[in-house]
């Protein structure tokens, strides 16, 4: 029991660290690799929960996470990036240091929230919930501080990773919901990809700042 708890704690902690790596990385290719690492860690965490708590349906979740988000989506994004010809630096709204500090504040916030709302007896699930919530918030933060459309997609996906982790730690979401979420994420990827190409065609850049002009509140 103790070991099972420690390993799930370790994997969730690794996911949190990778979330920070996503915020820290400067280049798009590195961001995509970090995202793949996070998804694979998620798959491991879910598989460990399935094995140690004897919930075989979670193995399906783990497989979906591994295949779809660990391999298919990163590879697709890598190819998108190559076709767009942007593998240089990621445009950012604020500096790395600032983003990391805000990220730390979000971690503290999620912990404070979870300590408030969950009873102490919930022990194991509570830890996972705090970490998962921090990962979700960091995904949000990534979507806010990065102006590049591809990294925004990554922020969205990493948020979804956090959600799955939370669902695993709690009673677990029904498999139907799980599968439909996975596929809606995949469809979201396609929509994003189409949008990215359309944005590029229209504005010659995938810096979403360019979209502001469409609203007419610049200039």
């Amino acid at each position, binding site marked *: 029991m*103790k*070991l099972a*708890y*420690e*390993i799930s*704690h*370790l994997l969730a*902690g*690794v996911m*949190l*660290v990778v979330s*920070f790596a996503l915020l*820290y990385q400067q280049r798009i290719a590195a961001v995509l690799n970090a995202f793949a690492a996070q998804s694979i860690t998620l798959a491991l965490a879910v598989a460990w929960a399935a094995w140690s708590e004897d919930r075989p349906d979670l193995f399906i979740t783990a497989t979906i996470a591994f295949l779809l988000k660990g391999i298919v989506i990163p590879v697709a994004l890598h190819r998108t990036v190559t076709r767009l010809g942007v593998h240089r630096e990621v445009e950012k709204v604020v500096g*790395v*240091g600032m983003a*990391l500090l805000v*990220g*730390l504040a979000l*971690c*503290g916030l999620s*912990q404070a929230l979870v*300590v408030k709302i969950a009873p*102490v007896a919930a*022990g*194991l699930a*509570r*830890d996972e919930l*705090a*970490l998962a919530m921090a990962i979700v918030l960091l995904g949000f933060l990534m979507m806010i501080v990065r102006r590049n459309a591809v990294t925004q997609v990554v922020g969205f996906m990493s948020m979804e990773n956090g959600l799955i982790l939370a669902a695993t730690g709690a009673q677990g979401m029904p498999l139907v919901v799980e599968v439909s979420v996975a596929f809606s994420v995949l469809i979201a990827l396609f929509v994003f990809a189409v949008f990215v190409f359309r944005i590029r065609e229209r504005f010659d850049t995938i810096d979403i700042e360019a979209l502001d002009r469409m609203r007419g509140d610049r200039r």
Partner: protein
Amino acid sequence: MTPAIVVQFLAQGAQMFLVLLIAPLAVGVTRRVKARLMRRQGAPLLQGYRDLAKLVRKESVLAESASWLFRTAPYLVFALTWVAAALVPSFASGLMFNWAADVVALVALLGAARALLALAGMDVGTSFGGIGSSREMMIATLAEPAMMLIVLTFAIAAGTTRLAGVADFFIAEPIAVRVSLALSLVALVIVALAENARIPVDNPVTHLELTMVHEAMVLEYSGRHLALIEAASMLKLTLYLSLLICLFVPFGMAPAAAGLGGWLIGTLAWSAKLLLGAALLGVWEVSIAKMRVFRLPDFLGVAFVFAFIAILLAYLSRGATV
């Protein structure tokens, strides 16, 4: 005065001189490993002792504008660093002055030494000294908060900030996967590299004007003053290696009640681990390039982030077990 107290006193004294004796050897091992990996012959292992002996014999040249601070700073820096290095438990955890070996006290001692050195760097009024001092202070302001967070992580885990207590706790505890400790190990290694002016942060072997930090600060020193400062930086390296050993691999350290035999085993284990750590440092240094000074806040920021996550996780898992 009972004989037990005398023995305790002697053991503490032995530790004090042990760190002083082994410090130049540790630096020698690092340099030798680096040289060998670069396919150079490298200086002999005992070169550190010879350098110190040579510097002590030489005349010390003072700048005309040097004040009393410039002359006294080396002695104080050496004394503070030596005290700090002697406090870290090396071969036994139950020595006489272990009650003083508090991590917060260590950070304070090293901080005082650094402040003195930075003042001395600016004392003569050369521009290099000023640059060195300002950069050293920048690094210190980034590294020290991370260090304090690491200390607090251990305080949460072991229930004390006394190093001997922490070491005893981890010797007694069964080996376990603890993500908070792994994170604080990474953070502490980054802090140690920064504090010892090692490669991704500063290059200890060059006197290249634009990049040096520590060397720029002590550029005006010569003779016995330089010997003291060199010895202090060697001691500091030994201190951090010893701290890493004490916190993360304390196995083999003699418990409080051990006799002479336990101490002997402890000394052997500690020396072996220390020299292994120094060799690893050499491998690390040849395999990585120095960072630009303006990238340093990001690098040290990583240490801070890791230490913060570590403390968060430590707090969480404590809440779960209570």
